[in-house]
């Protein structure tokens, strides 16, 4: 089959450049809007994936599904730390020592932590459920790529806290050196900023466990405990012991599964995103169809000429369809680029499982790109099909006579 050369389409797009450009822009806006939301889902899932280590166990109270509603005796926590099969702490590097990290070399990597969720004020005046985590000595060693980027690590028992740079920007009194005020009686001094590979920890304020316990009258209990198993087999054994041993009767969950299960927010955003994607795609494909119908109409004579020259109907159908896809692809590319700019935006979202604030870096990964491609193709194919069909249905003689 002799195909109509692609150059012909490109020339036509160039000649009708204002319409082409504006249609491209519409597609770009629509794709960018959707990509950002899926980028948020991607960022959230990425953050959850990074946060979860399959060999680290999150130990919760028997009935709890997440740390917010979990608690058990601190005695149990201390006993857990003595169990066999828990990995031991690595030697502290000089840099870590300089930054004030606790030294846990040779001691079990087990951290009993308290989660405290006060309502705090953002810098813009709106309120939010903030996670304040009272941490143990091993806590930083149990987070991926934990680093102090400014100031130093906290000293427990002195009402000091550390948090991520993103959080520092977002909350009143969270700047390095200032006092983070929860209530009149509960304040923490910000002594350092940390990053943790984009994991959940970057959405939290860290302080000493005893500091939180004292402030919230929860001395004697912990919310959860994190332990790192020395080996995959040890993890299996630990899960069994913690679940069934009469001394504990707790709920150990692999950290990877724990975060994978906190998916209500991601599910909601995916649902919302799909809704937006489908509706906007329909809206924009109508616009693309309009442009293509006009293209067919204004080129009636050319189509007649092409047919008279011997190009087959399928060739013309394909040519117009290709032109539509070309327009939407340009738009899709531009939209994806625009959403890349948005990926610098860190987004605060309320986690639906724990009702706490999560800071998510929008991430234009595979899922948003797949969505962009799907939208682009849907708009191109469905927007171009009917105009293309109209083009091939034209009567050659009539088309040639058309003014």
């Amino acid at each position, binding site marked *: 089959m002799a195909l109509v050369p692609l150059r012909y389409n490109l020339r036509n797009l160039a000649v009708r450049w204002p319409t082409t450009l*504006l249609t491209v822009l519409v597609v770009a806006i629509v794709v960018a809007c959707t990509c950002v939301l899926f980028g948020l889902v991607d960022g959230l899932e990425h953050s959850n994936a990074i946060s979860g280590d399959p060999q680290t166990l999150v130990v919760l109270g028997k*009935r709890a599904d997440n740390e917010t*509603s979990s608690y058990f005796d601190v005695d149990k926590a201390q006993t857990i730390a003595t169990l066999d099969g828990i990995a031991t702490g690595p030697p502290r590097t000089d840099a870590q020592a300089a930054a004030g990290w606790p030294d846990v070399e040779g001691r079990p990597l087990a951290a009993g932590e308290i989660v405290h969720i006060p309502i705090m004020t*953002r810098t813009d005046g709106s309120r*939010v*459920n903030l996670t304040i985590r009272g941490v143990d000595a091993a806590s930083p060693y149990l987070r991926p790529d934990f680093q102090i980027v400014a100031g130093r690590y906290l000293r427990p028992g002195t009402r000091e806290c550390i948090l991520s740079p993103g959080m520092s920007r977002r909350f009143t009194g969270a700047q390095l050196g200032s006092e983070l005020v929860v*209530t009149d009686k509960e304040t923490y001094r910000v002594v350092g900023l940390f990053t943790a590979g984009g994991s959940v920890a970057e959405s939290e304020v860290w302080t000493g466990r005893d500091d939180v316990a004292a402030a919230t009258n929860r001395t004697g209990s912990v919310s959860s405990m994190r332990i790192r198993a020395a080996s995959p087999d040890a993890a299996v054994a630990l899960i069994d012991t913690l679940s069934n041993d009469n001394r504990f009767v707790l709920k150990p969950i692999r950290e990877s599964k724990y975060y994978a299960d906190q998916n*209500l927010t991601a599910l909601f955003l995916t649902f919302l995103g799909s809704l937006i994607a489908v509706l906007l795609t329909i809206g*924009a494909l109508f616009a693309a169809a309009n442009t293509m119908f006009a293209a067919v109409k204004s080129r009636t004579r050319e189509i007649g000429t092409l047919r008279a020259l011997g190009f087959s109907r399928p060739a013309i159908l394909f040519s117009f369809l290709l032109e539509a896809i070309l327009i939407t692809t340009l738009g899709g590319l531009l939209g994806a680029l625009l959403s890349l700019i948005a990926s610098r935006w860190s987004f605060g*979202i309320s986690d639906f499982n724990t009702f706490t604030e999560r800071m998510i870096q929008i991430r234009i990964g595979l899922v948003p790109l797949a969505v962009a491609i799907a939208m682009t193709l849907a708009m191109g194919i469905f927007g171009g099909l009917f105009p293309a069909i109209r083009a091939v249905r034209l009567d050659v003689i009539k088309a040639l006579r058309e003014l």
Partner: protein
Amino acid sequence: MKFLGYILRNARRNPVRSLLTIGSIAVCGFLTVAMLSLFSSADQLREEVKGYDRVIVMSSQGFAQPVPIALKNEIIALDQARGLNAIARRAADGKPLISPFSWFGGKYKDEQLSLFAQFGIDPDVFFDIYTELTLPADQLAAFKARPDAVVVGRKLAADKKIAVGDKFPLKGEIYNYDLDLTVVGIFDGPENRDLRSCYFNWDYLNEGLLSKASGVGANNAGTILIKCASTALIPPLCQAIDQATANSDRATKSQTEDAFIGQFAEFTKDLQTYINLLGVAVAFALLIICGVAMAMSMRERTREVAVLRAIGFRKPQILGMVLAEAVLIAGLGGLIGTGTALLLSKNWDAIAPLTMGFFPYLRIPPQVALAGIAGSLLIGLIGGYWPALRAASIPVVDGLRKVV
């Protein structure tokens, strides 16, 4: 008005194009109106509850920290000692309208997640505080009489096919205790209230917790709900409560119900920002869509416009006619989009299950509906302006010569 017939004919001249443009605006308008309503319906609820003069006392440390039940009587005493008399009293017996309001957060039957709100309250006064919720008198009597009673909202009853007399087990997640309740009533209320919730006797939960050896979690009220005698008395009461507890280990934050609801909306602030930006972006895209469609129409009609100009139509008349056509098409799209959203919201109960529980109700506030229609008209006006101006400005002689 005499041009209307001609304008209507013009709008119908290229039916495919007009329908596609209308469809585009309708679909995107529907989306925008529905999205904007998600959050503004919370605003509307806040406005409505203002009239009920209710106060919620919670821990100053957030939702996760409960306030003790002892605080309830302390507040009553404080109210009298200070001579505030801010707490409303029941006309029949003078009982103060104050109740524990405790989030249970349990799982119903075999459900994997806690999917609807469950509160422990005082059955004796609760429906005197929430007067907009209605419960038949015999069911209310049963609710007050039976310790293990629970009343469920109309929508929850419909979703889970629950009838009076059914067992209603709730598995505790926050509390180390399972509730074995029996449905004694089904309450109803305004559409935008949470009718997928249930209320049970707080005493029943507390006695259950006390009966356990540890007694962990007992004697806590969660939050305390108060009905005030008048709006003016709310600020002094809140201030008095918060001051009295300030230096204890259970400092409180007392606020009006609408401020309490407002917190939840603020939690999702970035999402709201995104949706507002989405609305702006979509409006911009529609502006282009409408403008391009009108520009294509006008290009095909260049010669015709020139004829009109030759006959003596003046520029403003041409401009007005083209703009009217654009506004007509865009407005029709906006009307259909907003109308569809309104229609869906009216029948939302049938659709809600399809949203996997994420959108239990959709209510389009009148101002959002109006904004949707006004926005579409504006889109027509602005989007059509450039093509209209161009059409009106082409010199007659050039337009007449033009072969389309």
